[in-house]
Each structure stands twice: as structure tokens, then as C-alpha cells.
């Protein structure tokens, strides 16, 4: 009786095992699973922005060092616990210092870093604007020490512009 039952059980199990393998397309598991899809995007952003403390300039995403793996697990746990991105980052900074942030915090120590590019660009735009609006009248140019030519007649101006237009075709 028992033998018949066990045989029957085996027979039942075999085909279902076969079915398991082929019918489920996603038999493989994601290494890191999330209770909500939004957490997955935040996870990817965080491991991209956090630095591996031990490696030669790599973020957590690209690094296989043991400490990176540990930190990724921590990030995952904290996300599932419902902490905000800011809280998670602060958590790491408290333990590993600001070194682990690839996007430096904005504080008095990093004002120069965050403001300098913008300031430089503003200076550049000011230079461009000045040239864009510059007045080409001869009197004004003389004051600037410009060696611009003497006045041209209207016909000469037109001829000059024609020549220049032709030249513009050549890089």
C-alpha cells in the first residue's frame, strides 16, 4: 500500500518538476527584491551616489568589495524600513564621513565647489553679451584703441559684407 502510494507520489511529482522548469519564464530570482517598485529606483540611485570607502574610486554599484556588499545590504534594509534618501545618506556619513558621498553635501565647506562653475559661466555670458551688444560706430572704437579701419562708403560696406559672407562658407 505504502509502496503504491509512494510511487504514485513520485509519478505526480516528476511531471510537475518538468513543468516548473519550462513554464515559468522568470524562474531566476532577482538578487535584491523590493516590496515596492519605487524603492528599486531609489536603491539604484543611492548605490550610484555612495562611494566604496575601501576601493580606488568606485561607487557601490560597480564594486564587489565585501564592505560594498555590506553597505548595499544596509541600503536595502533602510529603504524597506521606510527611511528617506536623506536619512540613509546621513546614516552612512555619520559612520564613514562625507567621503562616501559622491554628490557632496552643500555646506560652507563646499560652497566654492558648487557655486564656482555657475559664477564662471555668468562671467562668460557677460563677456558674450558685451560683444553681442557692442556698438561698431567709429568714434567709440577709436576710444577703445581699436585699429579698425576708416569709414567705408555704403557701397564699400556692402562689398565688404559680400566678401565676408563668401568667406563664411569656409570653416
Amino acid at each position: 500500500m505504502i509502496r503504491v502510494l509512494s510511487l504514485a507520489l513520485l509519478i505526480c511529482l516528476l511531471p510537475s518538476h518538468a513543468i516548473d522548469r519550462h513554464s515559468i519564464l522568470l524562474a531566476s530570482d532577482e538578487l535584491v527584491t523590493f516590496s515596492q517598485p519605487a524603492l528599486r529606483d531609489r536603491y539604484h540611485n543611492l548605490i550610484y551616489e555612495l562611494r566604496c570607502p575601501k576601493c580606488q574610486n568606485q561607487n557601490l554599484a560597480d564594486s564587489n568589495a565585501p564592505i560594498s556588499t555590506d553597505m548595499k545590504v544596509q541600503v536595502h534594509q533602510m529603504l524597506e524600513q521606510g527611511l528617506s534618501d536623506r536619512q540613509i545618506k546621513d546614516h552612512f556619513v555619520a559612520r564613514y564621513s562625507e567621503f562616501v558621498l559622491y554628490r557632496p553635501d552643500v555646506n560652507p565647506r563646499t560652497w566654492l565647489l558648487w557655486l564656482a562653475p555657475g559664477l564662471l559661466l555668468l562671467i562668460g555670458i557677460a563677456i558674450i553679451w558685451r560683444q553681442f551688444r557692442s556698438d561698431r560706430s567709429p568714434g567709440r572704437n577709436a576710444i577703445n584703441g581699436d585699429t579698425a579701419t576708416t569709414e567705408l562708403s555704403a557701397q564699400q560696406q556692402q562689398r565688404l559684407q559680400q566678401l565676408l559672407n563668401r568667406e563664411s562658407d569656409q570653416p
Partner: protein
Amino acid sequence: MTQSTIRLALFVPLALFIALTVLLLKGLDRDPTELPSALIGESFPAFILPQLQDPQRLLVTEDFAGQVVLVNVWATWCFACRIEHPMLNNLAEQGVKIVGLNYKDQRGQALQWLEERGNPYWFNIVDQQGSLGFDLGVYGAPETYLVDAQGIIRHRRVGVVDQRIWDQEFSDLYRQLTAADSNIFVREKVSDQ
């Protein structure tokens, strides 16, 4: 723009370059891989973890409060720890109290390791998951923390502590802290806080 402003402006690139050179020269003295602990001046993190010798016994920070100790993070899988071990034995003989933090290791292997190489540790905390290590900001063994009598972390060294490192980084501070510690007046003052 007047002529003299232009003349002056032409020197700006040179001035900026000189500033850059000074920065780079100073930078040559620095080590970009050296990462000071984020916990300098902070209290040693709270923990409840088993002891190596007696796993039933759970340890907490209070177990080494009141004295100046070194907390040494080590593991049997850590190659550099073998190199560091004789130095630790040496320090222990001189009377330095060393608390071991056995980091992500196997108990049996750790015990055997100490058996073979000598045990400089006052006692060993078993941190199998690495949770205390994480709270400390540990990123690779061996690491050594100098903790004062009030439980404040004063210094951390990542890497092997040899005689040279001890003399350069720990020795003076250790002496300073133990002298203060032995001063009863100071201890009373602190316990009021």
C-alpha cells in the same frame, strides 16, 4: 577697459597657475587614501554582542568603560592581522588594555588562532554580522581604535599598527589619556556629566 587694466588682466592666468602649483605641492604631502574616522570625538557606539571565550556572556560598552583601551578589529581571514599580532602581544605585555573585535569570523577558527599566536586581548567581542563594525565605520581589517576612559573615540588607524605607527600616532595620546585617567579629580568631574 583701460590699457593698465588689460595689462593687469594678462597676469591673471599666471597668478591662477601659481596658486594651482602651490596647491599641488602641498597635496604631495597628503595621502588621499587615508580616511580619518567619522567618530573621532564621539562616543563608542552602543552594542550587545557575545564574548568569544564565553558566548553566553553578552558584552556592552560599559564593560570597558572607565579605562583607556585599544579596540582592535581583526579576523582570521585577514592576512595583515598576522603581521600585526606580535606588536599587539608586545603592547599587552607593557600593560596596554586591548579589546578585540572579532569581525565576521568563525568562533572556532578565532579561538585556535589565538591559541597559536598568543592572546593579547583583555576580552574579545564577536561581531559575526559586522553590525558593530558598520556602526564604527570599519571598512577593512585590521583597524585599531583608541578609546578614552569616558568611552570617547580619540584616534583610529586603518592598517597594521607596528612600532613606528604606535610611536607616531598612538603613544603620546595614550600616555596623555592614561595620565588623565589616573587623576581621580578628573574622573570625578567627568562622572558628574
